[in-house]
Structure formats: structure tokens, C-alpha cells
């Protein structure tokens, strides 16, 4: 059941180069993601899944077509507006976590709020609250190097969630984690959706994709199939 889409691609494509050297990373693609939906994008490397996620996250612009996020045309935004979108609406969890090693867990999480002009004290209080939700209470003052892989991953998710950003984008967020720790990350993403947030997860791992409400399959820059919505109450 798709409610009002918070992400909508209409004929959005991305290619690099021109003429006979042109490489199409994503063919014209239509996709609607509803508020509160957990969508997984599956495909082998080179299938265009990271390109698709970059377009939605405003890290890249479509060559043609339209990408609407929260009703706004990402392709038409100025760089500064994109930065605001990333700080307020869309959170990104990268394959490599990109935590700043010189900042504590709390400071890493509060950074996007502070960059957005929120007073440091309030930002850090918000960051602590998010870390607590993620089961990291008591570890706020640790530096990334003093946290386990699973804990670092949760800090990265915290940084993407803080400020009540509605959309969470995750690119292979469980990369190096063992299966039980990876599962706990999936449980967090699932809970974020059950609380009304939207998650778009890129993965080649079917067991992780299976936590999503819907899975779309990419091949050679095209969506080739998607799972059907489960029957109500079916297990």
C-alpha cells in the first residue's frame, strides 16, 4: 500500500560521457516510494543501484527526467538547497561509515544539526536521545576507534536519523558486520519505518533486502522486477 510518495522518479536517467563513449548508468526509470515504506533495491555491482540512490539523495542529478523528494525537484535545486535537503530531510548511511575519527559518537551525530545552525547544546541533547534509541547509551563520549563495528554502524545510522529526517538512505550498511550484528542493524531500519520513517536500502544481500516491505531488482540500469506486496496477515 503506497501512500503519498515521498520519493518519485519519473523517467529519471543518468548517463556519463557523450556520443559513442556514452555509458548509461541508469535508463529512464519510474519509481514511487511511499511515506513509511521500507524499500530495498537489489542488484549486482554495476547494475545502477548506487546511482539510483545518489539521485534520490541529491548527491547526483539526473541526466534526464525528474526526481522528486518530498515533493521537490532535486534536479532543479541549487547546491545550497541540496545541502539543506541532506541536512533536514534525507539522511545517508554510506558503505564506509565516514565517521569523523576526531569526534565522539555524540559529536558525530550532532554535527549535521550544528551545521544546520542548531545551538550546540540542543544539538548534542538531540544526538544523545538518538544514540539512546539505538542502544548506545553510555557510549556517547567514545571515539569511533573505541567502538565495535556494529556500534560504529549504529552511530552512522544515528547521524543519518537525527533531526527527524523523514528519509533514510542506506548503501550496503552492513558491509563488514557478522550476520547477527547485521540483523540488528536491519531491525533498527525496520523500526524506523514502523515509526513512520521511510528507508531506501541498497544491497546485494537478499537476507537484508528481505527486511523491506518491497524489493526492486535492478539489472544493467533498469528495474526488471519487484516483489508483490504481502497479503495482509500472511506470514
Amino acid at each position, binding site marked *: 500500500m503506497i501512500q503519498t510518495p515521498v520519493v518519485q522518479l519519473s523517467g529519471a536517467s543518468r548517463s556519463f560521457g557523450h556520443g559513442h563513449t556514452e555509458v548509461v548508468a541508469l535508463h529512464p526509470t519510474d519509481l514511487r516510494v511511499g511515506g513509511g515504506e521500507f524499500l530495498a533495491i*537489489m542488484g*549486482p555491482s554495476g547494475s545502477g543501484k548506487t546511482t539510483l540512490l545518489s539521485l534520490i539523495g541529491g548527491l547526483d542529478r539526473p541526466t534526464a527526467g525528474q526526481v522528486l523528494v518530498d515533493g521537490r525537484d532535486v534536479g532543479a535545486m541549487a547546491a545550497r538547497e541540496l545541502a539543506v535537503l541532506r541536512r533536514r530531510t534525507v539522511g545517508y548511511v554510506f558503505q564506509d561509515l565516514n565517521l569523523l575519527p576526531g569526534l565522539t559518537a555524540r559529536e558525530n551525530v550532532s554535527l549535521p544539526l550544528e551545521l544546520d545552525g542548531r545551538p550546540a547544546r540542543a544539538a548534542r541533547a538531540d544526538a544523545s536521545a538518538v544514540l539512546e534509541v539505538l542502544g548506545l547509551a553510555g557510549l556517547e563520549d567514545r571515539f569511533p576507534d573505541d567502538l565495535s563495528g556494529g556500534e560504529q554502524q549504529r552511530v552512522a545510522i544515528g547521524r543519518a536519523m537525527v533531526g527527524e529526517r523523514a528519509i533514510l538512505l542506506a548503501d550496503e550498511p552492513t558491509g563488514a558486520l557478522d550476520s547477527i550484528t547485521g540483523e540488528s542493524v536491519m*531491525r533498527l531500519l*525496520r523500526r524506523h519505518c514502523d515509526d513512520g520513517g521511510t528507508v531506501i536500502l541498497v544491497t*546485494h544481500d*537478499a*537476507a537484508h*533486502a*528481505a*527486511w*523491506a516491505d518491497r*524489493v526492486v*531488482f535492478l*539489472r544493467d540500469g533498469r528495474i*526488471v*522486477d*519487484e*516483489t*508483490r506486496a*504481502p497479503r495482509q496477515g*500472511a*506470514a
Partner: protein
Amino acid sequence: MSVKHGLLALLAEAPRHGYQLKTDLEGRTGGNWAINIGQVYTTLQRLERDGLVEPTGAEKDRHDYRITPSGREQLDEWFRSPVVFEAPPRDELTIKVLLAVAASDVDVSELLQRQRTASVEQLQAYTRRKAQADERKDLAFLLMLDALIFRTEAEIRWLDASEARIRDLTTKAAEKNGGRS
């Protein structure tokens, strides 16, 4: 997997009667194994005949059984031995894909994708049940779901690998032909 070892494992903990053995064994295996009560009674009779269990004689009208020392020995031996899958099971999916690859008029990548979608939907169903389970209370159920999930995941990995292998061959064949022209 025999009912025999399941019954011995339960009786090694405490004496039980037939119906209790059935329900406890079903509960212990996460509801994954429905057992016929008749099968429980015939197995108990056989175990008693072989001296592996014996009636406690505590209740007059109900037969409680307990494990004997030689029953315990057999059980220990079972737990110590790894499970060996001797003949690989005949698997319809594998056979279907192999036949499709050989057939000239079947779109193999479409077949693989249709199967992948179905398998991921199955995986979603298992995962939804896992998400609802209580991590502290439902250990047997969670372990059983993990087993089903990993098996389905292995199937999907095999589909992915098959697709990659077929593509790789097709690309190489195309390059070879391109080089000649």
C-alpha cells in the same frame, strides 16, 4: 531425522508420557516438525523392546517413560556424530535451470529473475515472522527460521552466481566473435 533420538533427548531430561513427548518435541523444534501421536507410541514400544527406555511404573493408568543407561549412551553418540548428507537431494530448481540452459528457446535470465523474485518473497515472509518473534523467549523458533532463511539465501546466491556465470560466457563469446569480424 528419527523420532527415536528426539524422544531419547526429551527423556534424558525428565520422564514423560506419550502425549507430553509429542507436544514437547513439537514445541522444542519451533513448530517445524509435526509428529503423529501413533508414531510416538510405536517408537516408544521399540525403544522399550531394545532396552533404551523403560516405564517408571509410578502411575497405574498412565505410562511415564524414563531413559536407561544404554539409551543415554545412544543419545550421546548421536549428539557427538556430525550429520552427513550422503546423496545430494534431487532438486527441481537446479534441474529446471540446467535444462533451461540447454534448451535454445527458453529465456534463462527471465527464468532466473522470476525465481529470484519468488525466493525473495519467501525470504520476506520468513523475515516478517522473525521480526515478530521475541528474541529472548523464542530461541527454537528463531533458530529454525534462521535455517530456512539461510537455505533460501543460498538458493538466491546460486541464482545470482548462475546468472553471472552465464553472462560472463556470453560476453566472452561476443568478444571472440567481435575480434574475428
